[in-house]
C-alpha cells in the first residue's frame, strides 16, 4: 500500500510533539486501559466495602506462587527493555535473544496461572462461589487475556522483525518500543492486582 509513503511521522518523530504516530497511539490506548481496569478496581472497592465480611486473600490464595509469578513478569519487562535497547545498539541477534526470553517468560506466567486456576477448580472454587472468587477470576482472567495479547504481539515482532529490520530499522525499533509500553502496562496491572487480591 502507498500509505507508508503518504503519511508522515510513522518512523520519525513529529518535530513539535516529539513522538511517532504509533507511540502517541499506544499512550492513548493505555489511557483507555487505565479506565478499563480503573472501572474494575472501583467495582471491587464498592463490592468489598458493601459487605461485612470479605475473605483475606492470603488465607485462601497461593501467595508464594503468585510472588514467583510477579518476579517472572517483572523479569520479562526487563528483557523487553533489553530487546528494545539491543535494536537501538543495532544488534539484531541480541534483540532476538531478549525477545525470545520475553515471550517465554510471558508463557511461564500463564502456565503458573493455569496451575493456580486448576488448583482452585479442584477444590470446587468457581467464580460463582462468592464475590471474592468472582472478582479474583474476572480480574486475573482479564489480565491473563492482556498477557496473551502481549505475547502474540511480541511473537509477531520476533518472527517478522528481521524483514522489517532490513527495510526500515527505525520503524521496527519504534514498534518494539510501543509494544514494550503495552507490556510494561500489563506488568503494572499485575503489580496492582497482586497486593489487592492476594495480600489485602
Amino acid at each position: 500500500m502507498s500509505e507508508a509513503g503518504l503519511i508522515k511521522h510513522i518512523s520519525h518523530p513529529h518535530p513539535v510533539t516529539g513522538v511517532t504516530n504509533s507511540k502517541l497511539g499506544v499512550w492513548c490506548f493505555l489511557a483507555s486501559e487505565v479506565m478499563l481496569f480503573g472501572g474494575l478496581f472501583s467495582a471491587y472497592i464498592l463490592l468489598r466495602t458493601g459487605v461485612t465480611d470479605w475473605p483475606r486473600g492470603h488465607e485462601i490464595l497461593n501467595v508464594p506462587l503468585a510472588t514467583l509469578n510477579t518476579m517472572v513478569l517483572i523479569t520479562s519487562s526487563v528483557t523487553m527493555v533489553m530487546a528494545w535497547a539491543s535494536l537501538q545498539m543495532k544488534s539484531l541477534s541480541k534483540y532476538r535473544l531478549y525477545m525470545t526470553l520475553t515471550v517465554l517468560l510471558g508463557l511461564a506466567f500463564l502456565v503458573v496461572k493455569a496451575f493456580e486456576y486448576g488448583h482452585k477448580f479442584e477444590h470446587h472454587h468457581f467464580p460463582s462461589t462468592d464475590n471474592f472468587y468472582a472478582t479474583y477470576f474476572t480480574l486475573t482472567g482479564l489480565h491473563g487475556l492482556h498477557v496473551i495479547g502481549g505475547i502474540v504481539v511480541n511473537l509477531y515482532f520476533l518472527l517478522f522483525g528481521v524483514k522489517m529490520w532490513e527495510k526500515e530499522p527505525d520503524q521496527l525499533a519504534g514498534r518494539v518500543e510501543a509494544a514494550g509500553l503495552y507490556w510494561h502496562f500489563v506488568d503494572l496491572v499485575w503489580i496492582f492486582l497482586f497486593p489487592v487480591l492476594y495480600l489485602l
Partner: protein
Amino acid sequence: MSHDASHGHELPFWRKYIFSVDHKVIGIQYAVTGLLFLFFGFCLMMLMRWQLAYPGQPLPFIGNLFSETAMIGGIMLPEFYNQLGAMHGTIMVFLGVVPLAVGGFGNFVLPLQIGAPDMAFPKLNMVSYWLYFTGGVLMFASFFVPGGAAQSGWTSYAPLSVIASSGQTWWLVGMAFLINSSLLGSINFIVTTVQLRAPGLSFSRLPFFVWSQFVTSFLLLLAFPPLMAAAVLQLMDRLAHTSFFMPSGLVVNGQVLEGFAGGGNAVLWQHLFWFLAHPEVYVLILPAMGIISEIIACNTRKPLYGYKALVWSVVFLGFMSFIVWAHHMYLTGMGPNLSAFFQVTTMIISIPSIVILTTLILSLWGGSIRFTTPMLFALAFLPMFGIGGLTGLPLGLNAADIHLHDTYYVIGHFHYVVAPGTIFALFAGIYHWFPKATGRQMNNFLGKLHFWPSFVLMNFIFMPMLIQGLAGVSRRLYDPMQYAHAQPTQPLNVFISISAWCLGLAQIPFIVNFFWSIFKGKKTDQNPWQATTLEWTAPSPPPHGNFVKEPVVYRGPYEYSVPGQKNDFWPQAMKENN
C-alpha cells in the same frame, strides 16, 4: 504524491470499496450503515407508536407478518414491546447517531479539514468500521434468537438484565464490538489531529468541527472502557453466575431467586453504565455543534462570534461531562450528599452549553444569510437544541427530578436534543458535504420539502411528550391506559403516533434526493459553497491522498467578508490576497 494519488485506481474493487483503508470510503461506509440503522431504529419506534396510540388493537396490514412470539393476531405482546424499546434506544445511539456523527463525518471531513492525506492508522480505521459492522449484525440478529432481543431498556439495568433471556447476552457481546470499534476510532482521531495537521495549521486555526471531534474522541477513549468493564461483569453474572450485580435475598415475581451467591450491588451497574452514558450524551451533541458551526459561518458569510469562547467551552464541556453521571441516579437512594454534588456539577455544565448556543446565535447577527438547505437545518438546530437543553435543567435539580424521573418528560427532553437537534445537524452535514463526497449537489427543492415537514412534525411528536411527562406518565409502559392518571393524556398519544408516521413519510424526499443526486445531481466544482476551510481546496470528490499538492495554512478558519478583500471568503490555504 501524484503517483500515490492515482494509486487508488489500481486496487481491485473489494480493496477499494469494501475493505478499503481510505478514510473517505470508510467515512461513507460508516455514514451509509449509520443511516440504515437510523431508519431501522425509526421503524421499531413506529411499531411501538401503534401500541401506544391504539393499545390492544391488532396492527393493520403488516401485523400478521410477525411471528407468534412477537404478535398474536397482530396484537403486540408486552415482551416484544420491551424488545422494541430497548433496541430502539441502543440502535439509535450506538449504531445510528454516533457512527454517523463520528465515524461518518469525522472520518470523511476531519483529515480533509486538517490537510492530511489520510488518517494516521488507515488499517486500524478499516478494522474499526468492521468491528462496528459486526456489532451491528449481532444486535440485529438478536431479534431472531429464542426469547428475542434484549428487553431491559437501552440502559440494561441489573438485576433484571442479568436474568433476562439470551438476547441480553447478544446485546453485551454486540456492545463489546462497538466499544472496541470506537476505541480504535478515537485513538485514530486523536493521533491524526495531533500529528498530521498541515503546515501552518496551529490549534488556534483549527475549524471548530475539528475541535468538537477532537474532544469527542477523548470522551470515547476514556468513557467507554468502564462500560466495557461493566459489560464483562454482566457477562460473568449471566454466564458464570457470579453475583457482581446480584444482591442477597433477591425476590423476583414473588419468589426468592436461586442460583446466585448474592452479595452484589445492582447500583454498581448504574454507576458504571452512566459513567459512559453521560459523556455519551456529549458524544451525541458535540459533533453536531461542530457541523452547525461550519455551516453557520459559511452561510452567514461572516466569522463565528467568539471562536475562542467556543473552543474553551467545548474543552470544559468535555472535562465536566465526566463528573455529572449520577444525576441520572437521584432516585436510587445514593443519598442527599452525592445528589447535591452531582446537582452542582450539572448546573455548572449547563454554562458552557449555553455559551456555545449563544455564540452560535450571535453569529447570525449582521450576517447576510444564505437560506440553503443545510442552513435551514442548522438554523432549526439552534432553538431545538435550546428547548432540549433548557428542559434538562429541571431534571438536573434533584427535587424536581423526583416528580419527573422516568416519565415521558425525560423522553421529550433528550429527544429534543438528539432528534431535532443532533439528527437535524447530521442532515445539515449531509447536504453540506454531499458535493465534496460525490462532486454533485443535492436538490434544493427536495431538500426544503424534507426540511419543513420534518421540522414541524418533530415538534408535534416531542412537545406533547413533555406534557405527558408533567402529568406523570411513566416512560416504559406497555399499556398507556394502565393507570388512571395517564388516561386523560391518551389523545396526545394518538396525535404523537400519527405525527411520527407522517415524519416517516417526510423522509421520502430525502431518500429520493440522496439517490437521485448521486447520479443526476448538479455537478459542482471543488468549492460550491465558497467556503474557507481546507476540505474545499481539494478536488470533489478528493482522490486517494486527498490533495493535489500539500496545503499550507496562512490564517484562521472563518475569514469571511474580510474588509479590503475582493471576494467575501479568504481560504485558509490561499497565500496572497484575493
